[in-house]
C-alpha cells in the first residue's frame, strides 16, 4: 500500500480539479424522472423479495446442509475463478492496451464475447470443447484420464469464462487512461522494466484492477447458465447458490427466497468492501 501512496502523485493531483468541474454543471431537471425510474427498476424487485420472505423460518432455511454447502462452494469457486481472471486476464488486458500488432481489434472483440453471449451458450460451447467427445476433453481423457464435466473444476472454468471480460475491460480501460508517460519517465531515470511495472504501472492501474476484480467476483457468484449446462448440479461439488435457488424454487418458494436474500446480502457485502476504491476506479 505504501507503494500506492508515494509513487504517482501526479495523476491524482490532475484528477481532482477535473472532478470538481464536473460537479459545477447543473443537471437538467427532466433527467430526474428517468433516473428515479432506473433506480426503482433495480431496487423494487429486491424489496419484493424482502416482502415475500418468511422471516420466522429464515434461520432454519439458511442453515440447511444444502444451503451451507452451496454458500461455501460459491465463495470458494468464485475466489478461485477471480484469481484465474487476474492471473490470466491481467496480462491479456496489458497486451490489448499496449500491444502493437495487427489483429488486436479482432482479438478484443473475441474477448468481449462472453459479455454478449447468453451464459447457456457459453456452457454448451465449453461442454462441446471440454466434454467427453470434445476436442480438448477427449485428449484429456485419453492422455491423462481426466474428465472435467461434473467436477468443481468445471464450475471454475465456467465462471472464469463468463467473468474474464469484466476484468480485462476494466483493466484495459485503466491502462489506456493512465497512458505510458510515467513509465517512460521511469525508464529514462534508469528503472528496469520489472521495477517500472511494479512501482509505476501497477499503482497507476490499481483502482481499475480493483473494480475489475470486484466485477469479476460478483459475476462469478451470480453465474448460473454456463455452470448448469457444463458442470451439472450436485451438492458439495457443483451446486453453487444460484443453482440451489433454481432447484429449490420448484418445490419450496420460501427456501428459494431465503437463499436469494443470502445472495443479495453477499452481493451488498462485496459492493461495500469494494466501494471506496471501486468508485475511484470508475472515474
Amino acid at each position, binding site marked *: 500500500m505504501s507503494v500506492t501512496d508515494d509513487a504517482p502523485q501526479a495523476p491524482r493531483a490532475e484528477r481532482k480539479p477535473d472532478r470538481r468541474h464536473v460537479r459545477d454543471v447543473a443537471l437538467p431537471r427532466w433527467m430526474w424522472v428517468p433516473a428515479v425510474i432506473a433506480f426503482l427498476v433495480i431496487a423494487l424487485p429486491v424489496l419484493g423479495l424482502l416482502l415475500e420472505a418468511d422471516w420466522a423460518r429464515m434461520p432454519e432455511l439458511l442453515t440447511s446442509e444444502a444451503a451451507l454447502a452451496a454458500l461455501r462452494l460459491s465463495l470458494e469457486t468464485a475466489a478461485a475463478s477471480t484469481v484465474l481472471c487476474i492471473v490470466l486476464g491481467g496480462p491479456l488486458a496489458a497486451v490489448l492496451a499496449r500491444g502493437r500488432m495487427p489483429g488486436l481489434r479482432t482479438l478484443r472483440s473475441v474477448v468481449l464475447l462472453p459479455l*454478449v453471449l447468453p451464459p447457456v451458450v457459453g456452457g454448451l460451447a465449453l*461442454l*462441446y470443447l471440454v*466434454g*467427453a*467427445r470434445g476436442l480438448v476433453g477427449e485428449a484429456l481423457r485419453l492422455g491423462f484420464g481426466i*474428465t472435467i*464435466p*461434473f467436477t468443481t473444476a468445471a464450475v471454475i472454468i465456467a465462471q472464469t469464462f463468463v467473468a474474464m471480460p469484466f476484468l480485462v*475491460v476494466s483493466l484495459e*480501460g*485503466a491502462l*489506456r*487512461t493512465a497512458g505510458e508517460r510515467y513509465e517512460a519517465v521511469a525508464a529514462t531515470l534508469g528503472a528496469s522494466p520489472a521495477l517500472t511495472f511494479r512501482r509505476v504501472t501497477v499503482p497507476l492501474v490499481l483502482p481499475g484492477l480493483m473494480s475489475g476484480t470486484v466485477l469479476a467476483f460478483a459475476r462469478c457468484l451470480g453465474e448460473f447458465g454456463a455452470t*448448469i*449446462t457444463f*458442470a*451439472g*448440479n*450436485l*451438492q458439495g461439488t*457443483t*451446486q453453487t447458490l444460484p*443453482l440451489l435457488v*433454481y*432447484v*429449490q424454487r*420448484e*418445490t*419450496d418458494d420460501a427456501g428459494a427466497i431465503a437463499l436469494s436474500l443470502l445472495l443479495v446480502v453477499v452481493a451488498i457485502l462485496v459492493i461495500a468492501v469494494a466501494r471506496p476504491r471501486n468508485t475511484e476506479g470508475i472515474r
Partner: protein
Amino acid sequence: MKFRVLLGLLAGLALLLAGCGGSSGASDAGGSSAAARPTTLTVLAAASLTETFNTMKAQFETDNPGVTVRISYGGSSDLASQIVNGAPVDVFAAASDATMKTVTDKSLTAAPPTIFATNVLQIATQPGNPKGIASFADLAKPDLKVVVCAPQVPCGAAEQKIETATGVTLTPVSQETDVKSVLGKVSSGNADAGLVYVTDVTAAEGSVQGVTFPEAQQAVTNYPIAVIENAPQAELAQKWVDMVNGEFGRKTLNAAGFGAEK
C-alpha cells in the same frame, strides 16, 4: 478518452437491450391484439408433451378453421405458477399430479382434471449400451457416471421413489434440473447413463438407447389435463381436452411411448 468510448459503448449496449425488451413487448402486444380476431386457444403443457401436442395442434387447426393453437411448453411447476399468478390460459396439461394440485388447490380449474397419459422412467445409455447396463441395480456400480433429475422435479421424485422401493442407492455425478438436460448429458457422451422418461428415449431417435427395468412401474407419473376457470375460450378448450382424451390423442400419445391410465 478510450475509456469514455468504452463507457459509451456500454451505454449503447444498454440502450440496445432496452430496445430489445421494448420491441419484444410491443410485438407481444401486437400478437395478442391481432389474435383477438382469429380465435386463439392458449395451452400450457409440460415440456415432455412437445412432440405429441405439436401433432395434435396441427390436427386441431385443420379440424377448426380460423383457430390458432398457441402452446407454451415448460417445466410443469413453472407453468402452474404462471396460472396461479393470473396468466390468461385455456388449458393446462401437467406432468405430475402434484403440480396440477397447486392449481386445483386454488380452485383455478373449470372442472376436475382428468388423467390422459402416464409415463415411466427408463434408463438411457449410450447407443449400443457399451457398459452393459441391464438393471436399475447396475446403475449403482462405482465406475459408472450416472445422471438423474434433482429430487425437487417430478422425474427426480420418481427416481427417489424407486430407490426407496428397491433399496438401491445411486451416487449420481449430477442432479439436473429437468429431464431433457439428463438426456443431453447422456446423448453428448458425458454421462454413461441417465434416468429419463421412456418418451424421452423415443423422442431422442437413437442418440441414446433405452433400457427398461421392472421397478419403473413403482413410480408411474400421471399426466392430468384440465380446462382453466374463466378460460377466454372455454368451449374450444373443452374441445382440445376431448381431443387429447379421444382416439386421435390416444394414438398420438401411444406412438410417443406414453401409457394409458389403468
